């Protein structure tokens, strides 16, 4: 079996249970108290990481790198919560993780960082990431990184990847109407932007955490700072539209009446 060199692009996003409030300053939009908001690993990138770790265990001598672009101090916090989940080597880039920064600027920084990874064999490269982030949610970054690295086999919103004995990879991508497009690529290199995948979140494994910490701390120390390009997009307005509804709470209708009212509403 061929070992893979899997590079997962993934960073932090605000915890989805937090209330977010936009601000518009001279530097462009941001979030109120952005640096204080609790954050989590971007969910779809998380699935990509777990799939990468699982694939690597099935293909001995494979390596997994997690390339993360975000404010260094917050990346360090994030590592506390994910280091025990999957084995990886961290490549950290100290920059803003704001969803308002142009994806292409982020993609260029990521591509450069990946190019510079010591020991990365591009012929074995599987570029992983989430199919969209929970911040910018544009669904474009991983493909751009792939294109910048010259990878012409790309898959988006993947739920299943099967690495076959002959080196080929069979991939299922989500398409319209709850269906999948099935394709087979002859082998690495390829770009795989994951949707949910098939694996549950792995339980914490302290041993994995200890191993990871050996590379995480130095990686954070030598994280290069990248200045995002904030000039390509000009924001005129960012707002949370007023969305609160006047909810009618129906407590004392019989089941028959409720069903009739809903049926009329459906038909109406």
């Amino acid at each position, binding site marked *: 079996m061929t070992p893979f060199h899997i590079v997962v692009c993934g960073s932090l996003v605000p915890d989805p249970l937090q209330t977010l409030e936009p601000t518009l300053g001279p530097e462009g939009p941001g979030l109120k108290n952005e640096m204080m908001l609790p954050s989590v690993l971007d969910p779809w990138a998380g699935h990509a990481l777990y799939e990468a770790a699982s694939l690597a265990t099935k293909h001995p001598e494979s390596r997994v790198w997690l390339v993360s672009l975000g404010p260094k101090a917050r990346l360090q916090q994030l590592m506390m919560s994910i280091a025990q989940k999957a084995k990886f080597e961290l490549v950290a880039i100290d920059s803003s993780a704001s969803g308002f920064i142009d994806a292409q600027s982020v993609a260029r920084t990521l591509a450069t960082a990946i190019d510079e990874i010591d020991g990365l064999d591009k012929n074995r490269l599987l570029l992983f990431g989430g199919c969209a982030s929970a911040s910018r949610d*544009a669904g474009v970054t991983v493909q751009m990184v792939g294109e910048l690295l010259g990878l012409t086999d790309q898959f988006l919103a993947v739920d299943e990847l099967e690495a076959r004995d002959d080196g080929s990879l069979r991939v299922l991508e989500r398409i319209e109407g709850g269906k999948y497009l099935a394709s087979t690529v002859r082998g690495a290199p390829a770009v795989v932007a994951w949707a949910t995948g098939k694996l549950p979140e792995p339980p914490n494994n302290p041993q994995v955490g200890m191993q990871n910490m050996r590379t995480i701390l130095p990686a954070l120390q030598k994280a290069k700072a990248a200045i995002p390009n904030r000039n390509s997009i000009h924001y005129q307005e960012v707002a949370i539209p007023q969305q609160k509804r006047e909810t009618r709470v129906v407590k004392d209708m019989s089941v028959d009446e409720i069903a009739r009212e809903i049926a009329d509403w459906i038909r109406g």
Partner: protein
Amino acid sequence: METILVLLHIDESGNLPRIAFEALGAACELRHGGNANFAIGIIGGDIESAAGKIGGCGATSFFGVSHPALEVSRYGTDLAALGALVEKVAPTLIVAPSTSRFARVLPGLAVRIGGQIDTHITSIDPGAEGDAVFAERWYYRQRMKAKFTRDARPWILVVDGGAFEPWKGETGSVALQMVSPWAEGGPGDNVTRTQVSGIETGESGTQTIRPDADLLFVAGAGWAKKQADGQTHVPKAEKLILGFLEGAKASLGSSKSLVDQSSEGQAVLTCLSHLNQVGQTGTTPRHQKGLATCCHGEEPHVVGWRFVQERRAVNLDANCGWARGKADVVYVADAFEVVEKLNDLLGV
């Protein structure tokens, strides 16, 4: 003056998907009454008849890349074809529909043509002629909306489904000018390492996702929880839900908690998979109406309802999230009883 190029592809049946007409509608908004240069570019296998369907859209020219290699959706060949169209037209603005095929390839196209790209566009403000074009989209998974512009060109605007009025107009034969991205022998080995084997239905067996349905029916974790009698009733829940979907011709959505149960090995509704999940880490479907059942209405779930216009919920808990300004009506009742009765009324 802008030069607008609308990029389209045909689907497996050889037709333009509905969202193609919406992208065309969006592009027409940019034309300032017809002053801009306006071209159409279509890729696919046999594209002549699809081009004819939009013959009356007022485009100044129609270009196409037709090749058996484009009968399937594949990054390498799609990128080569779209790149050739862009090179031919040299547009400043490119408008395209957010299909799964284009969502995969257009970011790479932006890199290759040295352009900019924005996706999930829900509204375009063309401004007065000569003014900046503004676009709108959501950030942080449908939690806030921004209006923005870009100076650099070419600028690719990928429009979301259901956000623009579809173009309607005369069909008519068009002088389709074919463009070839490849030399005589067709696409090379470097772009055909991927072989597409076809479309498969989701693992849930029954096709429950119907993007065109008026109604979205969302099942929450309550359906698989212990009920008043201290027992779970998963098979009954499944029967009621499938019956309702059939009777109401609804599409089936789910909360994360319910679909996650399958990976956690609990008794599950076999009609559901992660593809049904609505919310922060699921989909944001567009339907006129939505009925949430046994679902608490927590924020990470409800952000997926952004484009569901009328919302009702059935929940045993009068204080569930839906009651806090997220639904129009919350019926405090047992969903098993309500859906059973509803199915009678719907003739299931």
